[in-house]
């Protein structure tokens, strides 16, 4: 077997980076020699691929895992892990600047050490990469192949000149950043999640194109690192899938961080003059030009389906949706499944994880688990964070489901007041006539932590009324959930019941 070429990393080659690369793609790796037919062949070693490979191997299956670049996929290398690491540093800079609001002496001058923040990020990324390492896979009994995978039939794949045969296969090749069709953008050069974490110094002026989670999170982080940031979003609000109040609070928060927010605005063209990027913007009939040093594109993600030989395998796909799967995550070739970003509209690490577990059960053990049965929360890690689970009111209305919403602004929550973190709310939607929770949105400094309680309640079938009797530690921001439950309980006190209670107490 030949050694595979190591994909280059643009990050500074420090000790952390060396450790990460040792874990996710060792320089001297030799692909193993395949033996017989694999129970499960997995293409892509991102979250979905790794979860499936480990789970299947742990259950005794013979598993092959093919990765063309880095184990751990986007999440570990160029996604959740590095972004959350730098968001934390950026938040601390913001807190240092606002220290006086907390009765704390602010530093006389807050000077940003961007290189140190990025070094910390690399260190964290390297540490977390140990869990995704090739050594762990091998120890688990997974045969790991580095190289580009291509189907050459309905039950075989070629990688680095070797053909592997399988009984079942899982395609978990993930997704990559979309390149918007803006004249001049490619020639001018731009950043995406795939290279922004390689930066060693922040751009003085940054334009972020796209108001989705990636664009909003990184615009806020880089603004807090001292960049002069502008964010343009084609739609009238950020995070178009989220509640309007949540999106509005986010727009306010970004503006408060000094970001120039340009909603309802499109980038039309890019030119380079004297080393600077001139980007023409249009909002209805208003046209303007911003001059920046770097452009970050976060307009969306497209599934990685090219070059996989999917047609040869009888797998139906398209460039936008990716691989077409049924509710059991089975493709048009019933022996081939897909999981994660390559086939799902919700491109989250935890969704990739959950879908991979479904595939292992359905593919290897005749399971009949359905994707649609999952209750999937998600969170955008801006400050404040925006988390959601279940139905939105709009979706419920469209399905003609009567909804009641219980809203607790965080200024009603003692801990949020004490923390100086009153921006936000908890909104819990229940089906009218019952206390069944249909969905919830939380906007809070740690909304991602708070949404888990509501997700648990939904999955376990715990009604909002029952949450009222769950003792929440005081003072915590999650107490907002109990307050919403208490508000629900108060509505059960009908005029008749109130009158009856009065009579009882009078007696």
């Amino acid at each position, binding site marked *: 077997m030949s050694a595979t070429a190591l994909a280059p990393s643009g990050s500074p080659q420090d000790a952390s980076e060396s450790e990460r690369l040792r874990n996710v793609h060792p320089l001297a790796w030799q692909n193993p020699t395949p033996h017989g037919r694999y129970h499960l062949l997995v293409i892509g070693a991102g979250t979905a691929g790794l979860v499936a490979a480990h789970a299947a191997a742990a259950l005794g299956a013979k598993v092959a895992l093919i990765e063309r670049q880095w184990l751990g996929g986007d999440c570990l290398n160029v996604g959740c892990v590095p972004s959350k690491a730098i968001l934390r540093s950026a938040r601390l800079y913001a807190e240092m600047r606002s220290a006086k609001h907390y009765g704390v002496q602010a530093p006389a001058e807050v000077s940003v050490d961007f290189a140190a923040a990025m070094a910390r990020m690399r260190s964290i990324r390297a540490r977390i990469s140990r869990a995704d390492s090739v050594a762990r896979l091998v120890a688990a009994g997974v045969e790991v192949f580095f190289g580009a995978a291509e189907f050459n039939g309905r039950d075989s794949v070629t990688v680095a000149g070797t053909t592997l045969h399988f009984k079942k296969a899982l395609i978990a090749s993930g997704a990559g950043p979309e390149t918007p069709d803006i004249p001049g953008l490619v020639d001018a050069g731009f950043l995406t999640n795939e290279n922004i974490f390689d930066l060693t110094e922040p751009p003085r002026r940054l334009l972020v194109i796209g108001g989705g989670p990636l664009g909003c999170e990184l615009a806020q982080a880089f603004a807090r690192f001292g960049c002069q940031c502008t964010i343009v979003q084609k739609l009238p609000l950020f995070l178009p899938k989220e509640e309007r109040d949540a999106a509005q609070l986010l727009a*306010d928060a970004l503006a408060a961080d000094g970001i120039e927010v340009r909603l*309802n605005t499109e980038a039309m063209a890019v030119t380079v003059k004297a080393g600077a990027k001139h980007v023409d913007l249009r909002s*209805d*009939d208003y046209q303007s030009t911003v001059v920046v040093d770097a452009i970050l594109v976060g307009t969306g993600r497209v599934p990685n389906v090219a070059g996989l030989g999917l047609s040869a395998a009888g797998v139906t796909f398209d460039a936008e949706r990716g691989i077409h799967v049924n509710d059991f995550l089975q493709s048009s070739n019933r022996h081939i499944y897909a999981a994660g970003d390559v086939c799902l509209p919700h491109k989250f690490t935890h969704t990739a994880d959950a879908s991979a577990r479904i595939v292992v059960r359905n593919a290897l053990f005749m399971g009949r688990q359905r994707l649609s049965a999952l209750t999937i929360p998600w969170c955008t890690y801006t400050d404040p964070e925006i988390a959601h689970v279940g139905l939105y009111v709009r979706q419920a*209305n469209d399905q003609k489901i009567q909804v*009641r*919403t219980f*809203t607790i*602004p965080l200024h009603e929550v003692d801990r949020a007041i004490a923390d100086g973190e009153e921006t936000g709310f908890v909104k819990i939607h229940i089906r009218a006539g019952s206390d069944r929770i249909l969905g919830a949105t939380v906007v809070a400094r740690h909304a991602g932590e708070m949404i888990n309680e509501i997700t648990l309640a939904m999955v376990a079938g715990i009604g909002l009324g029952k949450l009222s009797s769950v003792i929440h530690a005081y003072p915590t921001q999650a107490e907002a959930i109990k307050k919403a439950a208490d508000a629900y309980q108060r*509505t059960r006190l009908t005029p008749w019941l109130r009158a009856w209670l009065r009579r009882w107490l009078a007696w």
Partner: protein
Amino acid sequence: MSAVGADADDRVSASTLAAPVSDAVLLDALQRAAFDYFLQAVNPHNGLVADTSRAQSPCSIAVVGFALSVYPVAVAHGWMLRADAVARTLLTLRFFRDSDQRGGEQSSGCHGFYFHFLDLRTGARVWRSELSMIDTALLLAGVLTAAAFFDADSADENELRQIADALYRRVDWRWAQQDGGSIRHGWKPESGFLHYCWDGYSEAIMLYVLALGSPTHPVTSDCYRAWTATYQWENLYGYEFLYAGPLFVHQFSQAWIDLRGIRDGFMRSKDCDYFENSLRATEVQREYARRNPLGWVGYDEDCWGLTACDGPQAEQLALCYRQGRWFGYAARGLPYGPDDGTLSGWAAAAALPFAPTCALRAMRTMLARYPEMLTAGRYASSFNPTLRDTDGNAWVSAGHYGLDQGIVVMMIENWRSGLHWQLLRDCPYIGNGLRRAGFRGGWL
């Protein structure tokens, strides 16, 4: 044109109004002062009315809608002769009938709609403003009010009614509806439709009712359903209501349409109606002001009024205040803001029909504490007690806004006589629009 009755010199000051005058005297004075705005801000040659009293202000077509709605009040109170009111209304309607409807950059409108802001003198579009669906609706609400009030069988009043009918009938509401969905916010000759639609509960009930009631170009019947699908029914501070942050949302359409006791499908499902909902929204305002989470000066349960209004801007403030975030003209709302400590006294007056006791108490409290909010006897757009000048007076928005004056005149009148509600109850287009929206019961 001549006005009859008291003129500006006879008006009592704010501090006097806050003292022991009766409610009737207080409301008379405020209503009359608000009405006088329309006498002062009108162009007597075409009937257009300035958006604000500030220099170089253009005409706002919505303010013209309010003007057409308050002339009947003036006739009823003896502040205008009927003949004068008819003449002014006719002048206004003729302007719109004859206006340039080619949709060019200098036109007044197209498809029966009008640009938001027009040159006060020529009626041509200014400020590259949008062809505005909601502001056209408010204008037409005034047009139909005038047609309902001036019902005499005279040449002038016959012509008035004939033009009013023609103006309403020529509006192509269907053109402004996105495919199978809600109504768009606006259109510009340079770039086409704006990306926004009328989604979420808002002041747009009037817009939807007019668009549904048209005998000529109605929106499709699924339009209203598409709109109400974006509603949010929330329990906030212990009140269950159809949520919208700024108070004017709960007030504007009900300046014309009597929504007491009639319900659409959404309100039937909540065992509520829009009038009751506005009462609850007023209570929520009081609750928010009592909590005052941002710690602004002055807020309490009798000092509130977060709504669409003018407000301070950093560059116009004293140095000591420039570090704050001030929002200028904005739709202030709750509980998530924007809230920069700026309140509108007129918002309490506009809440009179829904919550008279609370509204009157708030009006008196605010006038007593901040008499400077009343200039020339009428409400300024807003005041901000957190921002004080060297004499200790609250910041007050300069001049007056026509929308604020119009809603004050109409809501005081509706509370006392129900004049506008009664007028549009008798308008077949309104009744038809309400029924197509699914409203049932009560007077309907």
